[in-house]
């Protein structure tokens, strides 16, 4: 294993929760961060290579697979893969129809991308925690976090993009005045102009918090769930370091948790997608 191979349990956990970050060190040269000090030095302008790699790879995998089905899609009897893709697409389409009242050609493909991509990123959680980092270690890569959705950068990247779309459609559908009015004229309303003016900052505070809470809760829900799940996998993996009985018990636990986790990863992907649709629906709807 590499030079940074962990020895104690704490080191092991920490090692598993550290991204492979590339950035500029304090002395000016660019390279991989080793530890918290390096990360602090690098600041914002550094990049998590592992998260980016796995998220892009999984996204490309998704688009490649679905594009393949889309290219050969016919109205005839669908084959196995096309059947599956159609089933997913219909499921997404139904969800969008159920939650999104307007007409917008962006929403359904957006929902599909989110659902499948997030699902795939979450799915990486089911790969035993040590395999890929160990392989990477053999190849000289010191840190590797293979589940992109346990990286808040990834989840916030998604939710902030969704948030940008929410803002865009809010302004587009309601006009800037309408959007600002929605933020400041509700929930407290008064016929008296002076009282209404007094209410404005309170309304803005309340509505502003509601608005900001959307992307934050969206990304933190996914991040929190996946991070906790990954943590439990790591803790279970620690049991393999104990005696035979502990190891066997750990194996049983891992199996159970992995089966349960299948539900969680799907559910989290679905929740992320559904909330995105709902937020965009709210943004596209006129308030009366």
């Amino acid at each position: 294993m590499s030079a940074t191979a962990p020895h104690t349990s704490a080191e092991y956990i920490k090692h598993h929760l550290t991204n492979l970050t590339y950035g500029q060190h304090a002395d000016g040269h660019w390279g991989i961060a080793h530890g918290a000090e390096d990360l602090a030095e690098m600041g914002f302008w550094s990049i998590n290579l592992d998260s980016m790699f796995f998220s892009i790879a999984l996204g490309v995998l998704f688009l490649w697979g679905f594009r393949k089905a889309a290219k050969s899609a016919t109205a005839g009897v669908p084959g196995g893969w096309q059947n599956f893709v159609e089933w997913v697409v219909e499921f997404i389409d139904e969800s969008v129809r159920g939650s999104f009242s307007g007409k917008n050609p962006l929403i359904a493909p957006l929902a599909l991308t989110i659902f499948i991509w997030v699902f795939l990123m979450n799915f990486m959680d089911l790969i035993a925690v040590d395999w890929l980092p160990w392989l990477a270690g053999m190849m000289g890569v010191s840190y590797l976090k293979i589940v992109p959705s346990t990286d808040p950068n990834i989840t916030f990247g998604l939710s902030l993009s969704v948030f940008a779309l929410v803002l865009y459609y809010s302004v587009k559908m309601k006009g800037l005045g309408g959007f600002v009015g929605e933020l400041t004229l509700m929930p407290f309303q008064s016929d008296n102009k002076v009282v209404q003016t007094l209410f404005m900052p309170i309304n803005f505070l309340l509505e502003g918090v509601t608005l900001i809470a959307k992307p934050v809760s969206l990304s933190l829900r996914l991040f929190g769930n996946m991070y906790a799940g990954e943590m439990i996998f790591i803790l279970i993996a620690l049991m393999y370091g104990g005696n035979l009985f502990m190891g066997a018990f750990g194996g049983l636990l891992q199996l159970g948790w992995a089966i349960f986790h299948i539900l969680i990863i799907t559910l989290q992907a679905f929740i992320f997608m559904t909330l995105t649709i709902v937020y965009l629906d709210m943004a596209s709807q006129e308030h009366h």
Partner: protein
Amino acid sequence: MNFNATLIGQSITFLVFVWFCMKFVWPPIMAALEERKGKIAEGLAAADRGRHEHELAQKKATETLHEVKLQAAEIISRAEKRGTEIIEEAKADAREEADRIKAGAMAEMEQEVNRAREALRGQVVSIATAGAGRILKRELDASANDELLKDLVARI
């Protein structure tokens, strides 16, 4: 949690993926689904139509069969009637023919009888003449008794 440029990278990646999905993945699949939906609807409609037509055809067949049966019954009854008619006609013809033959035979018979009678009469006359001639050979001359002989022949 330390935030870095991964955030931006992920956002860009996300938008590119969504764009790609919207341009190249979603529309063809939806188009295929719509097309299949249309095809299935068409097929179902065709099946419905076929069933309806089948029902109609069956109804029509039953009707035709019924009609044909009626016609056949009528034809049979007519044929039966005609048959009895022919038989009656034949009987009448036969009877007429028999009558005619009988009448012919009768006439012939009568003729034969008459002829026989004439012949007999002639023979009787000659026999009588001969007889009388023998009896009256000498005294009587044929011409003297001619009147008497004629009377005798008329009486026979």
